């Protein structure tokens, strides 16, 4: 074990890292100390690599680690990112998700009085025209609609009565009793498992009336388990999966709003998709996944980039679904440059302007097959 001074140094450094948001457990500190014992402390480079390899385990943490390392061991000032205060953008989201005071769910008696037709009415109403009161009520129904997940055949085999593959392990066991005659045959077959889903939600200004409802839907899909990734985009792409993994929709949406810096800003769909393809598509996140894009297709930039990035996306995805709230209007025609450029690569083109359309979306997602015509 290294000397006391080193131990103290490393333990304190662990605390500095924790403050920088890196998860450092006691086992890791232990490893770092054992590692330091094995290298030459005089070589700064070796100390750096040893600490980095024992204390950090993900790419995202490398940059904060480097900053902390140079601050701690070289006494250089750290440059801290300015704290972000987005109070004005957080509020509307929180209240929509049903903040404490805005809990305007109708009392029991009221609900019965309004009855089925009230709910049916809500189902058909455009999200943009709902009062805060009605929104609070719809919130639960959206969560129910979003509890959906496409399935795919797994490569794994499970015991099944009507399978096609012999379960040899069982067969041998059974044959022991009968002297080699397989009196009873057991089969296995491939099972169904959840398919990967990637959801990209437009939160730019033109989508303001729908973004929150759609994000609630996204939150519910994220809640169906592993293999779902969620992103928001306006002028830039923000990954929201960790924020939306929180069970409570109210907190999840508030956390998400804090992360998104360009809420109700402009739209650069092509740029955002490019960022997605470069960072996540290259890591094969989209391979075999159902990709859902919720956007009105108003592109501020050149639509050509959007088209080529959609082509890239469509090639690796299992199916691409585009949800456009404007399509809720029967008179809507996808004439805007962005939407027109994207449509050739879209397998299903659906509205998402009210509860009924989200239910329809859920149904499409559950039963989706490859390469439908839009």
């Amino acid at each position, binding site marked *: 074990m290294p000397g006391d001074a080193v131990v103290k140094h490393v333990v304190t450094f662990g605390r500095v890292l924790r403050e920088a948001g890196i998860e450092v457990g006691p086992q*890791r500190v232990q490893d770092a100390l054992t590692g330091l014992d*094995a290298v030459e402390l005089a070589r700064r480079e*070796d100390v750096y690599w040893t600490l980095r*390899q024992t204390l950090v385990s993900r790419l995202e943490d490398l940059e904060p680690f480097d900053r902390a390392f140079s601050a701690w061991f070289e006494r250089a000032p750290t440059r801290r990112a300015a704290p972000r205060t987005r109070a004005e953008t957080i509020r509307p989201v929180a209240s929509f998700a049903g903040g404490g005071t805005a809990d305007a769910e109708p009392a029991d008696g009221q609900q019965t009085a309004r009855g089925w037709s009230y709910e049916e009415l809500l189902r058909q109403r455009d999200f943009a025209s709902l009062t805060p009161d009605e929104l609070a009520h719809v919130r639960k129904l959206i969560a129910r609609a979003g509890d959906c997940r496409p399935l795919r055949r797994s490569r794994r085999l499970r015991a099944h009565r009507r399978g096609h593959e012999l379960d*040899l392990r069982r067969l041998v066991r059974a*044959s022991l009793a009968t*002297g*080699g005659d397989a009196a009873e045959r057991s089969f296995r077959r491939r099972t169904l498992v959840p398919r990967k889903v990637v959801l990209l939600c437009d939160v730019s200004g033109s989508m303001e009336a729908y973004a929150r409802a759609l994000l609630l839907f996204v939150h519910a899909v994220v809640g169906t388990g592993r293999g779902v990734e969620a992103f928001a985009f306006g002028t830039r792409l923000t990954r929201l999966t960790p924020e939306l993994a929180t069970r409570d929709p109210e907190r999840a949406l508030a956390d998400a709003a804090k992360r998104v810096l360009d809420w109700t800003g402009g739209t650069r769909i092509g740029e955002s998709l490019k960022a997605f393809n470069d960072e996540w598509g290259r890591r094969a*996140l989209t391979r075999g996944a159902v990709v859902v894009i919720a956007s009105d297709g108003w592109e501020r930039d050149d639509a050509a980039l959007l088209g080529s990035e959609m082509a890239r996306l469509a090639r690796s995805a299992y199916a691409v679904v585009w949800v456009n709230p404007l399509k809720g209007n029967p008179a809507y025609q996808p004439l805007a440059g962005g939407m027109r450029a994207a449509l050739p690569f879209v397998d299903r083109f659906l509205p998402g302007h009210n509860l009924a359309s989200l239910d329809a979306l859920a149904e499409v997602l559950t039963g989706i097959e490859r390469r439908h015509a839009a």
Partner: protein
Amino acid sequence: MTFASIDALEQALREASYLPDRGLATALYLASTLEKPLLLEGEAGVGKTEAAKALARAQGARLIRLQCYEGLDVAHAVYEWNYSRQLLHIRAAQEGTVSEAELFGPEFLIRRPLLEAIESSEPVVLLIDEIDRADDEFEAFLLEVLSDFQITIPEVGTIVAERRPAVVLTSNRTRELHDALKRRCLFHWIGHPTLEREIEIVRLRVPGVPERLAAQAAAFVQGLRRLELAKPPGVAETIDWTQALAALGREELSAEVVEQTLGSVLKYHEDFESVRDRALVDLVQEARGAR
């Protein structure tokens, strides 16, 4: 075989035709000193798998490789019973004389990579390649093996490793791995090499390549990585490409020969087209000017 210092390991890898940077050498050294698995991540083609192979060569150890894929299960990763042989055995014996212990003896056991690595009495490097392709269930199982270095077979009992194999896991980050698994491992991110190192690597891996060609090819690929490509080329591509150029008998780059052979560097059609139509001539100029 363990190494006395990072320098000694670096030297041994160099002799095994692999040029690690200081970071990777430290990672491999720590992994063997702390007896912990090493998780290597990085873009495709930066030499993750090659690092494990080189470590095996440097240590004079046997490399056991488990290639992960979706649906990988215990029967393909750890062990399986040889069912057809078991059935034949039951048949061949007189009725009622086959005992269970006999049927589940070592001669009916098919050893898959993990069991082989645990059971081995000689030094072994266990390479678990592209762990991100296996599914969650397998990752959870692996966690058990990697923390205790033991495997339990219900019919036989628990097999504990006599000597712990050096374990290298690689991942292309197609998905995030479980924190629990990461916690068991040392972590190293392999980036693209610097120009000098890349030239050195190419010259080591393509014996007899003209020095100028190696330098220009490496400089050209480094230039490609600065462009916004769907899939920037890795060192593996640089090596392949230089091999192709050397096979064509080239001494240096020209726009014409680059265009003919660019397909071994850029594997995406869009990348190929955009480089050919826009950046190619400038990059060749730049690469030729480098040396």
